[in-house]
């Protein structure tokens, strides 16, 4: 399985990380090397195996329907990069 530049560009778009050609080339080399290593898994036949999603030996615990967090807006916005007391502010989306 070879990962080409087109794939790198596609993945970087999906992960919202910008790549220029130089970076994409290096990434392609690194990723191909890593995937070569990962390909080892193909040696195993796992057709009849159930996937393991969690090693947590417990069941999903419920929370009761009580409001606990009340107006902590100043805390929520404290680390915001923009200076606005009520909202998060981002550049416009192009629709």
């Amino acid at each position: 399985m070879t990962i080409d530049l087109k794939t790198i560009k596609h993945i970087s778009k999906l992960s919202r990380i910008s790549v220029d050609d130089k970076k994409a080339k290096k990434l392609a080399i690194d990723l191909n090397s890593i995937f070569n290593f990962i390909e080892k898994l193909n040696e195993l036949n796992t057709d009849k195996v159930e996937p393991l999603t969690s090693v947590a030996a417990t069941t999903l615990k419920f929370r009761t329907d009580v409001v606990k967090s009340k107006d902590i807006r100043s805390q929520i916005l404290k680390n915001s990069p923009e200076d606005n007391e009520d909202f998060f502010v981002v550049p416009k989306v192009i629709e």
Partner: protein
Amino acid sequence: MTKDNSEYLISRDNNIYEIVIGLEVHAQVTSNSKLFSASSTTFGAEPNTQVSLVDAAFPGMLPVINEFCVKQAIKTGIGLKAQINKKSVFDRKNYFYADLPQGYQISQFKYPIVGEGTVILDMPNGQKEVGIERLHLEQDAGKSIHDMDPQNTLVDLNRSGVALMEIVSKPDLRTPDEVSVYVKKLRSIMRYLGTCDGNMQEGSLRADVNVSVRIKGSDKLGTRCEIKNVNSIKFMQMAINYEANRQVDLIEEGKTINQETRLFDTKKNETRSMRSKEDAHDYRYFPDPDLLPLEVTDEFIEKLKADIPELPDDKKKRFIDKFKVSPYEATILVSDMETAKYFEEVVAKMGKNQDMKLAVNWIIGELFAVLNNKNLEISESPISAKNLAKLVNLIKNGTISGKIAKTIFELMIDGDKDPQIIVEEKGLKQESDPKALEALIDKIINDNREKAIEYKQGKEKLFGFFVGQAMKVSGGKANPQLINEILKKKL
């Protein structure tokens, strides 16, 4: 376009097309706190005041599931006569948007909490079954506000993390009318169950509408387009109409339809493609490793089943069987739980010797008109069920005429006055003494001898004149039936 009673077809030259519609309804779960965090869900709060650290996706924050939301989803599933899945899984749906703080939405992809079910629609020409594919729980996103700042978008995360039930129908709907009835039925069921308030203005209920077209008679599905986030039934219908015609036009021109996501522009009344979503389809779903599979027991489900109130379909059947109302009337009476309650209270208060038809007509006719006018819910009705029952009984036992009743009704609105008292105070008792009426009519005929002769000679329309005169002279209190009988006798 041809439209007959049950069909909605688009015809062009030699081809007749039918529309195939599937709906994905997003219903906000009625609960105190959000699906995976303990912040409030109330509508209309100041921006970002109902946001917890978990909602804002701060580093190290983790989801913990709200038991009540799970119960609400199962109850809704029961109301949809659907299969409840004892084991379901939460998956992450990964994409980037300003109102999605985690960079993923916690949803259910492969294993939803509720499976297949059915909804019955009461259409004018009979009942129609619409299949439900599934219902799953997911997080709602926050709100992006694009028009407050020219350079920027403002983000309010109050809604981020609120529990949504996504109800996916099978592509069984064929007309805009069916869509309206379907949405209203879903709304009604959920309001009965108390699982969603169905308030479309507040955004508690919205739908993604999937539309495709095909030649009538074909059983293959055409390419569908998804119209996202339509928040009123009227807009759904308009969007379907526009989109279906757009697709038919493309087919007739020999062009292909791109499977895409579209928006309904409410100002231009047209659908248009959403540009930025090319990669949006690769959501890279995988089970959320911060959560474990959701498991519920048979006991858990049975307990919820026991809590379910009588639902619209069953109530309708009971009203028809027990109260002998027509299916049409029953549908209206059960569409809203409060209306059904009001009706049953009226019936109870009417006691023996009741006139069911009259009661139904007064509720669906006069009362509904007043409520609409004053923008009130039936639970806020200015006239109580008790007093409306009294009014109906007064008509039934001949104390007042239907016409007088209307006057009394108007007077009852202010302060829910007892109609019996109004009748006595205003002396509105119907005059039903045959002797008195005969005397009255004799006088009228005497005063209008020429007209009486004209009538006897064949001018039948003049009957109405005499009835009118009798009403005028009696101040509207004459018993109309008797007037008619006596007049017929005397003329």
